[in-house]
């Protein structure tokens, strides 16, 4: 099936051709009816990418195709794209209904259809009762839902969401995440969401796209990406904290929750790699402890392990066991990422 949005070697440089690229040679297909997330650390070019899709920024080079047609120089008002901004950007002087109806009125739809569709969109986000109020009278979460209703009401060919949940507190964020997914599934809209929260990306995505410094690092179904990070950057970003150097193996990584700590001089299993180490820190994390272990033989000196934590103190000697089936081979041994995180 033809992608709704296709980026063809798109780059953007702020401040002319010789400036550093915010987005570099990005190729990206957004599949119809799917939820795509753009994930990456702050400053990696997520917002820039979204703004180019919406038409607020022109790519310095490359092409943008919407529904198969070149739209690189189409102005935003002709693109039929729904955008939800991080700051919501609700019109402060209009009622909630007028905000939601704005995009329908610009399309010169008849009055009764405008009212009906604005009403439906508000109902979809559960805010029919607030129709007559002004944005300033609503809570952050409610404003966020109005912004969503406003974008959905125009039945856009793609819904763009720029960190729509980052202004909400932790509980509301999880709740709104579910709500967002429900609205997307109910409407069948194609959605692209920008986030730097990997949990959000994992839960929402049909496809997740990981960006680093304006370049694509890896993309795919989160169920495939999460257990198989392609390189060190992606691994670090997804919380693979350990990069041990094992004799006779290339660069590998393993999640802290898969690292087992055994008493000193105990033997690891046959399907595990073992290293001697010394505990350097035990950090209480609620349901478990994060134990940091120095492993002089393990290259990257410190390994982190999730452990009940009882009885372990800094200075204790331990044996670190790394189950081989949880070791992920990496394509590279790139420099540590997240420098500008």
């Amino acid at each position, binding site marked *: 099936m033809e992608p709704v949005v296709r980026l063809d070697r798109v780059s953007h440089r702020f401040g002319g051709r010789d400036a550093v690229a915010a987005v570099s040679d990005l190729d990206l297909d957004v599949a119809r009816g799917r939820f795509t997330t753009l994930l990456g650390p702050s400053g990696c070019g997520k917002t820039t990418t979204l703004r180019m899709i*919406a*038409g*607020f920024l022109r790519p310095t080079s490359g092409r943008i195709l919407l529904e198969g047609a070149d739209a690189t120089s189409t*102005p*935003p*008002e002709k*693109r*039929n*794209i*729904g*955008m939800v*901004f991080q*700051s*919501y*950007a*609700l*019109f*402060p*002087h209009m009622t909630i209904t007028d905000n939601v109806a*704005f*995009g329908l009125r*610009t*399309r010169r739809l008849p009055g009764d259809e405008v009212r009906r569709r604005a009403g439906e969109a508000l109902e979809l986000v559960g805010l029919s009762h607030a129709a007559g*109020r*002004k*944005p*300033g*009278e609503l809570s952050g979460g409610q404003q966020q839902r109005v912004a969503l209703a*406003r*974008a959905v009401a*125009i039945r856009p060919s793609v819904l763009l969401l720029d960190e729509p949940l980052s202004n909400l507190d932790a509980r509301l964020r999880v709740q709104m995440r579910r709500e967002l997914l429900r609205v997307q599934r109910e409407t069948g809209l194609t959605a692209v969401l920008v986030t730097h929260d990997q949990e959000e990306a994992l839960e929402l995505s049909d496809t997740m796209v990981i960006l680093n410094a304006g370049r694509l690092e890896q993309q795919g179904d989160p169920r495939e990406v999460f257990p198989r990070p392609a390189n060190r950057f992606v691994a670090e970003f997804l919380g693979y904290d350990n990069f041990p150097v094992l004799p006779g193996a290339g660069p590998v990584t393993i999640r802290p929750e898969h690292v087992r700590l055994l008493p000193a001089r105990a033997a690891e299993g046959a399907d595990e790699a073992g290293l001697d180490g010394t505990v350097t820190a035990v950090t209480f994390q609620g349901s478990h402890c994060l134990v940091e272990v120095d492993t002089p033989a393990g290259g990257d000196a410190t390994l982190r392990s999730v452990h009940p934590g009882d009885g372990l103190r800094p200075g204790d000697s331990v044996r670190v066991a790394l189950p081989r089936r949880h070791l992920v081979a990496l394509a590279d041994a790139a420099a540590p990422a997240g420098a500008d995180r």
Partner: protein
Amino acid sequence: MILRRPLLSLLTAIAFVLMLGPVAILIGVAFTAGSTLAFPPEGLSLRWFAAALEYRPFIDAFGTSVLVALVSTALALALGVPATLALQRGRIPGRRVVENLFFTPIIVPELVLGLALFQQVMVGLQITALGTLVIGHTVLLLPYTVRVVGASLALADPRLEEAARGLGAGPVRTFLRVTLPVMAPGIASATILAFITSLNNVPLSLLLTGPGVATLPVEMLNYVQSSFDPVVAAVSVVLLVLSVAVAFATERLAGFTKVFGR
């Protein structure tokens, strides 16, 4: 409140007395039945208002003042609003410098500005005194309009216009339906501020008045140099009432306290 913060309450009270005391005295003197600038007034009458109406220069000057204030406020808005828009929303190289240029008339003493205008425009280009007054006041008011309208724009989310464009509105519709309403409270405040500033200005007007053309404050200044009766107090009250009326009317018209419902 008063009991919990006695010092603060006392200071507030003193500030109010210092600010409103002279105004109260002025109003009292204006309605006096006597013939000196004495307080408390010796009886009540409107005779000094009547006297002011009889005095031709005041009537002329009042007309000049209102005309200059209206025209220069309109001009300062006509120039200031687009300038603000360009500064806030456009991509102008050296934005800060341009912005600060708009600020210079506030920094340059009005007498210097007046002298320059007097020499270059009034004498040099042979523009009438009224024209020079309007130009001078426009220059005087421009920084206020740019700043005040700019503040209302700066407070608004710069993504509002993008949101409108994304929803299918072209640049014109976006301006009329989003940018302008968002700026409205700022424009209303700027109008009040500019009109009152022009109406009450003395230093600039003093230098730019020519034969037969003077603003009301300048004419009042001339008057008190020769005679010292309550007529000036009556005229001052008229100016005061006009200033308050303009502020009130603009506030009601634009309803700017209501625009942002937050």
